[in-house]
């Protein structure tokens, strides 16, 4: 939407720009640091006080969720207006006022499936960051086979009673509420699942952080022992949770697909620089190890091809073209690429890439093997690469299962 095409939009841009100039605090226009990311919720500490101010101001306009209805605290903006808002935010390099699973995942499905009362109760506190949400999906016995979940939810007349265990619950130890898939009918598989919301401070809830091979993690094991949940906290139809779950997974995957794994880690030196530093160069500036040079070129080409594919998919989507085919391979390719890049980094660093902690290694060096190890999960989390390839084969290529 070019400027000058629509006077109303031009006015909106001018107002927005003026409002941001006045309301976006100076430190919120500097690059985001890891420890100042705002996730909201009851325990949010706002390490930088201007983060709190910025969230309050943005939330007051509903601009943490610009296109959601005003009725539920959203910004009520049209698509075109939101585009302008995002452009203006980018123009001043403003930080995200709020990061939240509520904004990215829960909110959209509540808008689609929840009752008016549920929306009024939950959505405003997502928009203003008062409540931080976590997602209770995977279980120890149900990984790729998500619908195999066993966490039991019984109807006790005036409440639901929940017993069971979730795993890979990101930030369960820091979140206030959980949106959770539970089994309300054990006689069928997909049609026996419901979608419920409850407070993590409820009696019987316990979250234990999971230590990964790469070190500490945001993931938890979460245990439910006779947790009582009010009846009006089931969203959508009883036993209709699987449809909501699938919709929600789409939001999760499109979040991953939009960026690729690990591309957010800015500030780390580029692979060729790392390789040159640790391996050295020949007189004419080439990487001293010819074998490694070929493999580095391979990784760099894969990286470029992936980035071009992301760009192509985005551009085609914008132009209204069908992009399902391209999008279907992006998570698979992203995982493979990030694994290749992090493996190459470790290899290029040689002995300096083999440290775990303590003396003898720089901070960058200690990060490299942890990043490599963490990247192994890229082909597992959010749908394994095997599931991803199954999906491509079946949905995109139309290949059938065995019959009989």
């Amino acid at each position, binding site marked *: 939407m070019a400027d000058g095409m629509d006077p109303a939009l031009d006015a909106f841009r001018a107002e927005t720009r003026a409002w941001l100039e006045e309301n976006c605090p100076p430190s919120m226009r500097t690059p985001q640091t890891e420890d100042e990311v705002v996730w909201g919720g009851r325990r949010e500490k706002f390490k930088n006080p201007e983060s709190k101010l910025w969230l309050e101001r943005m939330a007051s306009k509903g601009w943490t969720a610009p296109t959601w209805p005003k009725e539920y605290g959203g910004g009520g903006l049209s698509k075109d207006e939101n585009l302008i808002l995002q452009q203006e935010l980018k123009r001043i390099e403003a930080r995200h006022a709020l990061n939240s699973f509520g904004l990215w995942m829960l909110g959209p499905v509540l808008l689609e499936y929840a009752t008016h009362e549920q929306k009024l109760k939950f959505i405003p506190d997502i928009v203003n960051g008062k409540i931080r949400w976590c997602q209770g999906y995977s279980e120890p016995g149900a990984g790729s086979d998500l619908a195999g979940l066993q966490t039991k939810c019984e109807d006790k007349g005036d409440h639901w009673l929940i017993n069971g265990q979730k795993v890979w619950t990101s930030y369960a130890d820091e979140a206030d509420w959980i949106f959770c898939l539970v089994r309300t009918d054990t006689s069928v598989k997909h049609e026996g699942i419901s979608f419920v919301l409850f407070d993590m401070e409820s009696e019987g809830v316990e979250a234990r952080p999971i230590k990964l091979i790469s070190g500490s993690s945001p993931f938890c094991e979460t245990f439910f022992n006779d947790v009582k949940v009010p009846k009006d906290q089931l969203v959508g139809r009883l036993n209709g949770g699987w449809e909501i779950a699938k919709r929600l997974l789409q939001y999760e995957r499109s979040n991953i697909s939009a960026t690729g794994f690990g591309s957010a880690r800015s500030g780390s030196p580029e692979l060729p620089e790392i390789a040159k530093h640790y391996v050295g160069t020949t007189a004419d500036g080439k990487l001293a190890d010819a074998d490694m040079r070929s493999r580095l070129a391979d990784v760099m*080409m894969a990286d470029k091809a992936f980035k071009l594919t992301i760009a192509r998919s985005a551009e085609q989507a914008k132009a209204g073209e069908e992009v399902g085919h391209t999008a279907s391979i992006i998570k698979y390719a992203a995982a493979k690429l990030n694994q290749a890049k992090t493996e190459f980094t470790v290899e290029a660093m040689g002995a300096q890439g083999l440290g775990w902690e303590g003396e003898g290694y720089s901070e960058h060096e200690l990060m490299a093997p942890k990043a490599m190890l963490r990247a192994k999960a890229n082909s597992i989390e959010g749908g394994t690469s095997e599931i991803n390839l199954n999906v491509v084969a079946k949905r995109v290529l139309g290949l059938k299962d065995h019959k009989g």
Partner: protein
Amino acid sequence: MTFVLTEEQNMLKEAARDFTAEQLSLKYFREKRNAGANGKDPESWNSMAEMGWAGVLIPEEFGGSEFGYVGLGQVLEAQGRTLAPTPLLQTALIGVSAIVLGGSDEQKATLLPKIAEGKITTALAVDETAHHTPANTSLKAVATGGAFTLEGKKTFVANGHFADLFILVARTSGEPGDTNGLTLFMIPRETDGLTVTELNTLDYHGAANLTLDGVVVPNADVLGPVDGGWAILEPVLDRACIGLAAEMLGSSEAAFEMTHEYLQTRKQFGQLIGSFQSLQHRAAIMFSEMEQTRSCIAAALNALDQGSDDISELASLAKARASKLVHLVSNETIQMHGGIGMTDEHDSGFYIKRARVQEALYGGEGYHRERYADLLGF
């Protein structure tokens, strides 16, 4: 827009696909092969020229449509689907690029209209050994007052067995390995001292070796500056790589589609073979490679139309990835077809044979991997 075709480009794409499917089908290719055509098919080229495809890159003032590289890429991709041996890449892309980039006004005015009409086809003569290393040119051209005298050999000149005009790289100074000291010459087929040996190639497209024995080329037929030919040759080779990659994408697509079809019809053990998970995963991986390669080629074609400054990187990326793709797909095509794919009567063999030539021409995956590293400075 980099990745979305305009309406006109889409129309050209449709037209090219219809034309190649109907008039340059695999069935037609097989008939020509059986008749020993070795890639020579002037009638089809006349039809293509009538469609205007010889002049897609030629400025309007010289009789072309100046429609651009993205457009030409669609036609190359379409002809790649049916493996059609035509002078499109050599003439409409390589020859025209060389003349547009290096030619004098007079050379343009003389040659481009004829090319647009399909009256002249060209062939680029660059390699002298079994491997593509253009800076290693050693074929000598000695200035002899008003003309140059050329001595030496050129190998595997694509289209060389029927082209009317050779665009030939020779060394006017310096040593093999130097990029300085190269000069481009235009040499008509019927020139004294030029011997053209027709090659019967693996892919049934044919090619030629050239021997130059005291060939005299008047100064008027030098293309671009003497000793400064690299400045034309390198961008021409980038264009060649990108155009060839587009053709290779088409070949990969068509071979994949044929295999995909077979997976959905062939039964073993009472099951469609496409229902076996290991074949499903391999098909999905091929698809993933194809989608990513498509992005590289689209970006490279677009960069040519935009005159971007990363054309060389994108050219090596496109050619390397297309080589990898067509290698993978041509192998999987045979393996997934099983025995029938090994027979001459099936089309699988045509794809793998053409693939190996496409891979080698203007440098394979390894060559462009090394060049990519050079260009990125490591």
